[in-house]
């Protein structure tokens, strides 16, 4: 299915955004998040951005105080997912203007809308920042 989940977690291990494309119960989610975050936080800068966990891979990258983690199937192109994470960050940056963790926290729905425009059902839908942000800007103007 491609992408299984997207998480944004800060350095203390608190989840700031969680989008799952397959169904997991609340306990499973918490356990999963805890395990993965521990693994990623323990790695240093030199090590590669891919971690193998159970039967899928986690691709992660740290931007300031926030970790972006994407869980993918084993046959997915990891380098492409790294690019996708960067695209996501750039899109949010363009919208919020110098995005930081607090922006995401206080405008959680907007972050979700953006993510929804980009990824649907585990596959990447749209890669052009302009196209992604148009509906969101329209909505902001109308409300």
């Amino acid at each position, binding site marked *: 299915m491609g992408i299984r989940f997207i998480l944004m977690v800060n350095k203390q291990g608190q989840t700031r955004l969680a989008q799952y494309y397959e169904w997991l119960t609340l306990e499973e989610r918490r356990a999963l998040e805890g395990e993965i975050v521990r693994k990623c936080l323990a790695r240093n800068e030199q090590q590669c*951005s891919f971690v193998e966990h159970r039967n899928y891979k986690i691709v992660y990258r740290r931007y300031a105080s926030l970790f972006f983690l994407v869980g993918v199937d084993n046959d997915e192109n990891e380098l492409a997912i790294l690019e996708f994470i960067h695209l996501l960050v750039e899109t949010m940056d363009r919208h919020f203007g110098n995005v930081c963790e607090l922006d995401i926290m206080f405008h959680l729905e907007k972050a*979700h809308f953006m993510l929804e425009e980009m990824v649907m*059902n585990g596959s990447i839908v749209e*890669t052009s920042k302009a196209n992604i942000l148009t509906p969101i800007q329209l909505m902001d103007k109308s409300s």
Partner: protein
Amino acid sequence: MNPFSSGTRLRDMIRAIRACKTAAEERAVVRKECAAIRAAINENDQDYRHRNLAKLMFIHMLGYPTHFGQMECLKLIASAGFPEKRIGYLGLMLLLDERQEVLMLVTNSLKQDLNHSNQYIVGLALCALGNICSAEMARDLAPEVERLLQFRDPNVRKKAALCSIRIIKKVPDLAENFINPASSLLKEKHHGVLITGVQLCMDLCKVSSEALEYVRKKCIEGLVKTLRDIANSPYSPEYDIAGITDPFLHIRLLKLLRILGQGDADASDCMNDILAQVATKTESKKNAGNAILYECVETIMSIEDNGGLRVLAINILGRFLSNRDNNIRYVALNMLMKAIVVDAQAVQRHRATILECVKDSDASIRKRALELVYLLVNESNVKPLTKELIEYLEVSDQEFKGDLTAKICSLVEKFSPEKIWYIDQMLKVLSEAGNFVKDEVWHALIVVISNASDLHGYTVRALYRAFQTSTEQESLVRVAVWCIGEYGDMLVNNVGMLDIEEPITVTESDTVDAVEVAIKRHTLDLTTKAMALIALLKLSSRFPSCSERIKDIIVQNKRSLMLELQQRSIEFNCILQKHQNIRSALLERMPVLDEATFSGRRAGSLHTAISTSTGAPHNLQNGIAKPAAAPIADLLDLSSDDAAAPSSSGGDFLMDLLGVDLSPASAPSGTSQPPKAGTDVLLDLLSIGTSPPAQSSSSASDILSSSQDNKAPLANLNGLASLSSLPANATSPASPVPMMDLLDGLGPIPQKHEENGPAYPSLVAYESSSLRMTFNFSKQPGNPQMTLIQATFTNLSPNVYNDFLFQAAVPKFLQLHLDPASSNTLPASGNGSITQNLKVTNSQQGKKSLVMRIRIAYKMNNKDVLEEGQINNFPRDL
């Protein structure tokens, strides 16, 4: 006013939560908020509905249950305004999943929204549908989605495409309807639609093979052209990433081409040019370029062979491998594993780099590199590679050691060119990481040692030395203790020294010291102590001077709380005290353990494990060199593999020993039919003329049964009992002997002289138009559980049968033994017959009657015929 009323904005709530110092505080805040929200829901408060839902979503993300908000989502979705709908759909996707029944209620709203005039609302509905629809909803709304695939707005089209993917996955039957619209999507210009269209086609091809055919025929040229256009397109600000236009689309197209080209030579030909172009022209300085190259290499490896392209691909991989960026190296190692199937030579060239990667500081890279090295090993490079791996074993960290040890052991076993090298390597591994070594591995080592008779002296000396230095490695201690016990005299007398060894002086009491250390050190480990006890017993026979000391050590375990140890120490003590005269005969050197049988049995028991193991996607099997030797193991569905007791008509030497343990020594005494090859061995064992195999078979069954921990002590007892009746049994194997003198306090196992047991009527077990099989039963006295069956086959047709083979399988509570048949040609029309003897042991005799599944195969007029059946009509009390 209540500060936590629903008037609070989302950000105030978030602030409040962030201000909490402890988890308990946070829980309190959340609880209050939830209560307020619940109150608002009850009052059906319109104004703050979407604010409440936003709060709910935040709370849900923190991990608290929020199911009371689900109906709110529905109300929001049903309302008219866009922001409300937006939040409602978002809530729907986050808080619900396809299994909830509430979802069905949304179907109607979704249908209306799909037909809405505002395209953004249509987009919303498609989004929601695409993320969480269930199979019924998919079926209901599929026609709408199909229509939307041709909508005027590209945004809606792209969302409809992704939605269709989910529909197809949920309801594969609907796939045919989507084939045509999907292929027309491939001709679009808008990138978003293209990406999703390509994705849709990929999933269609995976789900339905006719879709695959259709897309192959019609769309490949179009796809190639699109890829070429994108690769050559000028700078486009919208989609540019690091100088490349829309790398995501590149990658998607390459993936689809891969699926289309796999297994189809024509399709692969069309793609060759564009693949070469992408592979050579893409810039690899940035991650985006590397991502495209990675995908390209994967595609080249999967489609049909084209020499030039493959070389190109492997060169790219080589470049990746020497890149300093860890991500790139990881990806390269991944690809190389697939490349090895295709072109092993090229990958061998990079062996040195890969070895370096095994030692890398990054755990992910280490893991990949180790798997790759494992695939690279062949006879010519096994020695240097193993040397490197073992050196690394010493410095690797704990989590990695287990993996590494397992791989080294299976490598060594598979490819060892000579025995002495194998023993050396295994010794090193055991000294370093004995605790990670699995049981079968050191069992195999013992088998090999016993087979290498010229190396016995060398082995035991090496083990002794190793034992002095690393006593905490369990497996090493076990193997050392066994060898010292077996070959202690070689150790002391420096027998069989090889040129490369240094002389070492070991006295008899030194060896006893060593074993004593083993017992004291590993007070908690049953297997080690048990093995040490029997080693001591062997030493007492080899070095009579130390008997007293050994006896003292053994006696210390007489009151042990573990039954096995207590029993052993009492028995051995008896032997030492009362039976010195037979002691040396009892404890002679063990015979060579049969390697073929051992690995056959091991492979047989791992039969199911192999078929379910995941491992790398190619046909190499880890560590099992010889094929499974159980011929009947797959004879139809008799509950489980170990249910069917393999019926070996050749007679496994070891199997016999362990199988016959349960039916004490009456086997040799008076079988009415002359025993064939299988039972021959047994008779030999138990006759006096060939004592060494006999007595040592007891220790064989001891060792093997103790290390498998699955035979009851009773088996040992019976084993010892039956076999120790021999020395007294000097004259006739047939006359039984009371067991009194060996086992104090144990009554004699009655062995009446042979007379035929109660007669059973013969049975026509199987009859068809061409064949009849009759069973004649007899039982031996004193052994009600075992039945001897003579099977007679008669040919009822006018044709001769050749290559006649009878096979049988029985359920778990039975044990079956087949002797070879009298011949394998069955003359026609009953002019002759074939007889074959079977022995069945029923552990539930009296409670369950016998049942057997049979298979008869023969050649008639050069055609193979197979007959199968089940026999359920055995007499009840067999």
